């Protein structure tokens, strides 16, 4: 595994095949918990951990699982990992566990986890698979974080509210009140706000891509993409 492969995996996860705004997988947590940055990023990181672990544990056993039962076996392994993460968070990060509540067990139903296992870990070695899970998870986390920031600023006029629940009492003063005396904008907090925000993010990414393509066409000396090989991904 060379450096270029690692770069490809991260470029795919974070931008080219970003689960949140390109593959549009994992919308359930995207809609539900992205009402604040802290919730969104915490769940994103928990999902990244589960994705890295599930890819890591499924890649080495991929040749022992008969094709007909691979989906139930994969789901079984993912569910076990999620439950283990849930127990550990309940025991050692109680505050965060209470905040994320029902969304931790729901990571099992997040289709991006199974999608990466099926598309990547069942065809590749353990180390690249783990990196792929991590990169995809971080890509999702980034989208969740940006969407959470948009919705929180618009909906409540704050940033990082609830950060003390994730990081402990020392973070109590870290909440930023972006707009003072803000009355709130309900639709940004409700699920429609998540849909609209996600639509804007997808449009923004497409616009950036189009602009890069046009630039490349008018100036053929510069390479079209930072990494043309990734186009096969």
């Amino acid at each position, binding site marked *: 595994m060379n450096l270029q492969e690692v770069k490809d995996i991260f470029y795919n996860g974070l931008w080219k095949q970003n689960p949140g705004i390109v593959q549009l997988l994992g919308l359930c947590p995207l809609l*539900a*918990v992205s*009402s*604040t940055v802290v*919730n969104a990023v915490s769940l994103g990181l928990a999902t990244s951990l589960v994705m890295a672990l599930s890819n890591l544990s499924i890649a080495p056993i991929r040749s*022992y*699982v*008969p094709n*007909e*039962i691979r989906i*139930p*076996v994969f789901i*079984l*392994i993912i*569910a*076990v990992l999620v*439950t*283990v993460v849930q*127990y*550990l968070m*309940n*025991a*050692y990060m*109680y505050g965060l566990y*209470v905040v994320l509540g*029902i969304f931790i067990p729901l990571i099992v139903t997040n289709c991006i986890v199974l999608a990466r296992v099926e598309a990547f870990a069942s065809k590749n070695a353990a180390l690249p698979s783990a990196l792929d899970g991590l990169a995809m998870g971080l890509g999702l986390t980034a989208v969740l974080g940006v969407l959470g920031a948009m919705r929180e600023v618009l*909906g*409540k006029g704050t940033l990082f509210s*609830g950060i*003390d*629940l994730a990081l402990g009492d020392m973070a109590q003063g870290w909440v930023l009140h972006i707009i003072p005396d803000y009355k709130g904008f*309900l639709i940004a*907090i*409700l699920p429609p706000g998540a849909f609209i925000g996600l639509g804007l993010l997808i449009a923004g990414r497409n616009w950036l891509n189009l602009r890069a393509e046009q630039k490349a066409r008018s100036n053929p000396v510069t390479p079209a993409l930072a990494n043309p090989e990734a186009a096969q991904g």
Partner: protein
Amino acid sequence: MRRIARSTLQTAANLVFFSVLATAILASTFFLTRDEIKKSEDAEKLKLINQIMPGALYDNDIIKDTLTIPANELLGTEGDTLAYRARLKGEDSAVVLESIAPDGYSGRIWLILAVRSNGELAGVRVVTHKETPGLGDYIELPKGPWIKGFDGKSRALYKDADWKVKKDGGQFDYMAGATITPRAVVKAVNKALIYFEENRDKLFAAAEPKKEETK
């Protein structure tokens, strides 16, 4: 035919193997984390009790001075719950009750209340709920000060008709767009206070009575 049977059996054995492995991993994690989880839950409970009951109100070991309350309609409970008794210099000072509001927007809301011996609320907190995040969850303390509005209230101060949200002609605030949640909580708190009035002496009875007596 035999080949099909053999491959089916092999596949089944494979699935069984993974299920057993998964169960073993889950069971061992459960046993490894069980004590730690119990500890954090107890710590959380004591933290909650201390929030609604100023430390100056009691000098006994409140976590151990408990009374088992069987399922009760006024408390909305369907199983045994524990009442924690606070005593100061041997005098009854307050009791902590658990109560369930059955009619929240998304199901039940678990509450914990501290009632002083004179029937005045020392405080109320929400333990768990499934209300809409960002909308109905202001009943929870970190997300809003609403629940502190119960401090110092009693049934001597407010009549039955006052134990409602302002929209229904009562005395309690609510937030536009989420009235069902506070309505359910106010109703449950009032009912818990009625329970306290009716069972005051039993609640403070000195030692934990035997199970037969509480039934």
